[in-house]
């Protein structure tokens, strides 16, 4: 960890990681008291990712959490009571008892989109959020998370490819905790680095140690700034480890002991405390003060949650449809003149032509196909296609690189 943040930023990151863990510890207690209605998922050991990435967003930006991103919700401004009440299925919860866990959102104020249990769906949804924000001139960035497991869904690829074609201001955090329920990442994806998935969409990616919150934040900040500046979507792979089972019911006996030991010794909060102490940003007294503050807050929040009523049964049949303006008055927040997107200003010449395509030269000056088979095999002339030329990985993958001719024929086969 290197020092480059303000003192307040360092302490904010610490506060939110501690709050994240304390909220989840409280929920484990509630779970054991049978006060949590459904499942309880843990982000133990992954707090640095949720907190470090969400902290890189501005207030106006949008995020959509996954099940293990309670920390991101807290950073965005969700009060702990909402998280407790969601899990306890209470009437005062954001979904009023209609859904649990982190499945809630806030379109009006906090700009949070609710996840669903089907993985990957948030990627095109947040791409749409990013596109709409750009269209309205709001200069926002949209962020969501996906696991190593979720990165194998079809909609992950559809969404990220579409985001890339649109150059949407979108940042995707690929949280590689190495386990999809009981299936290790090595059995899911034949890649050393899941960040390599970005190459398939022609977008940039980063790999970061997910247990180093400062590195996570710095990387996320750079990605968010670049996305906001119009450089298109960015993928960040944050490597970490899921310390608990898939959920409370799962003892995760399938995890090798050595692996667990290794990662438990790299607890993100303990590592960060060591750093903060060495940098004289934290001492025993200020640490104690922060703990007391969090304890006092959570006692209050938990009391509120426990005292909230369960929803009245007949509430089950309410709210399937929006009933009109009295229910929701839907109005976009324009941050640019509407005249820019209405005729005559919006009118364009509809042109087929994509620069260089089909004319024998690519947009980068390289060779573009007139028809398949025209392109020089990439390895015979690696410079000619610029970025498109596949680089032979320096890593030992145990496989020979495919011959150039196979690459050319596979392009053909794709049709």
């Amino acid at each position, binding site marked *: 960890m290197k020092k480059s943040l303000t003192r307040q930023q360092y302490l904010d990151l610490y506060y939110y990681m501690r709050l994240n863990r304390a909220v989840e510890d409280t929920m484990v207690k509630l779970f054991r008291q049978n006060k949590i209605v459904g499942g309880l998922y843990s982000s133990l050991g992954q707090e640095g990712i949720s907190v470090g990435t969400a902290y890189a967003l501005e207030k106006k930006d949008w995020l959509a959490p996954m099940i293990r991103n309670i920390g991101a919700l807290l950073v965005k401004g969700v009060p702990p009571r909402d998280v407790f009440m969601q899990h306890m299925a209470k009437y005062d919860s*954001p*979904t009023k008892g*209609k*859904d649990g866990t982190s*499945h*809630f*959102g806030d*379109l009006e104020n906090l700009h949070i*989109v*609710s996840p*669903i*249990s*089907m993985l990957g*769906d948030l*990627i*095109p*949804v*947040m*791409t*749409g*959020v*990013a*596109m*709409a*924000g750009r*269209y*309205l001139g*709001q200069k926002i960035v*949209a962020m969501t998370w996906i696991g190593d497991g979720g990165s194998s869904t*079809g*909609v992950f690829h*559809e*969404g990220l*490819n*579409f985001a890339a*074609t*649109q150059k949407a201001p979108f940042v995707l955090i690929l949280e590689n905790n190495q386990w999809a329920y009981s299936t290790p990442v090595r059995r899911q994806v034949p890649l050393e680095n899941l960040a390599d998935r970005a190459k398939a969409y022609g977008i940039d990616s980063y790999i970061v140690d997910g247990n180093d919150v400062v590195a996570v934040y710095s990387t996320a900040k750079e990605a968010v700034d670049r996305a906001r500046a119009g450089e298109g979507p960015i993928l960040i792979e944050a490597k970490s480890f899921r310390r608990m089972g898939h959920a409370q019911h799962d003892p995760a006996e399938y995890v090798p002991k050595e692996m667990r030991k290794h990662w438990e010794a790299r607890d993100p909060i303990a590592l960060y405390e060591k750093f903060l102490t060495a940098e004289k940003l934290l001492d025993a007294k200020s640490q104690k003060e922060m703990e007391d503050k969090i304890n006092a807050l959570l006692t209050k929040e938990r009391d509120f949650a426990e005292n909230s009523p369960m929803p009245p049964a007949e509430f089950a049949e309410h*709210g*399937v*449809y*929006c009933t*009109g303006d009295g*229910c*929701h008055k*839907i*109005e*976009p*927040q324009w941050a640019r003149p*509407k005249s820019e*997107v*209405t*005729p005559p200003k*919006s*009118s*364009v*010449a*509809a*042109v*087929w032509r994509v620069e260089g395509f089909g004319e024998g030269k690519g947009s980068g000056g390289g060779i573009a196909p007139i028809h398949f088979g025209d392109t020089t095999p990439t390895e015979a002339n690696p410079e000619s296609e610029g970025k498109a030329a596949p680089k032979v990985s320096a890593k030992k993958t145990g496989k020979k690189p495919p011959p150039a001719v196979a690459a050319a024929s596979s392009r053909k086969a794709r049709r």
Partner: protein
Amino acid sequence: MAENYATNGAAGAPVTFLEAIKQAMFEEMERDPAVVVIGEDVGVYGGAFKTSEGLLERFGWDRVIDTPISESAIIGAACGMSYLGLRPICEMQFIDFVVCAFNQITNFVAKGHYLWNAPAPIVIRGPSGGGVHGGPFHSANPEMYFVHTPGLKVIYPSTPYDAKGLLKAAVRDNNPVLFFEHKFLYRRIKEQLPPQDYTVPIGKAVVRREGKHLTILSYAAMMHTSLEAAAALAQEGIEAEVIDLRTLLPLDEETILNSVKKTNRCLVVHEDTKTGGIAGEIAAILCEKAFGHLDGPLMRVTALDTPVPYSPPLEDYFLPNAKKIFAAAKELARY
């Protein structure tokens, strides 16, 4: 095929169903810059059936968005856009492909308002239905998947007037709407449309032909086939009342019940396959709410419970037609 189902102060040259769809999108985009169109080949090409022709030239790349072949991404992105107040119209190149985005529609879009107070004002539209030898993947009527999904609205119009008015209403509705356009009707019927802005209310059926001996409930292309059968039935002294459902979700129970309470007999005609079709739902409603008024069993004329076959003799056998409707209606009238 018959022309002019609605006069409604019509003026100007009659237009096709296709043209009515195009006019609706054009006028809604003109009216409200929050309306955008997103789909495969909708931009420069103007859509596979040319329903978005000219939109890109007028409204630009930000509002007429060509996408990769990624139906889940189209629906997902439209949903995200709607969260910021936009009103995207998603085109499925053929409605058969809507099932590629089934999860996105049924789990994300449809449940948002109920679960977390997030309306998703998007329209998902595209060409549907058989009779044009499109084969098993370009002829589907997948409306009932969505009628079975609370949170969605499902519209399936039969005339250019309704297509335009209902599409405009769908764009202005705060809920996600599935909008089916029967491609058999695209160029086969023409109608004069009013020059001024109008909408047709979602959830309202309409009586297309009055009668007293039995009620025929139908929608989309089969509404025209039912009218054809009704004309033949009239020659034999059987006066069939033909009702065009127009919206399948929410279903206009009031119009259905009023008619059946008058005629005491009900025949449902749909091009969708039989098992799990809307006829079964209507039968249940009539049993619950008009059992004492029925003089005979609810009858149905539908497509076979098979995929849509390709070869003309097979598809003709698969589809309902006026002859089958005529025969069923005669049988029902005997009760």
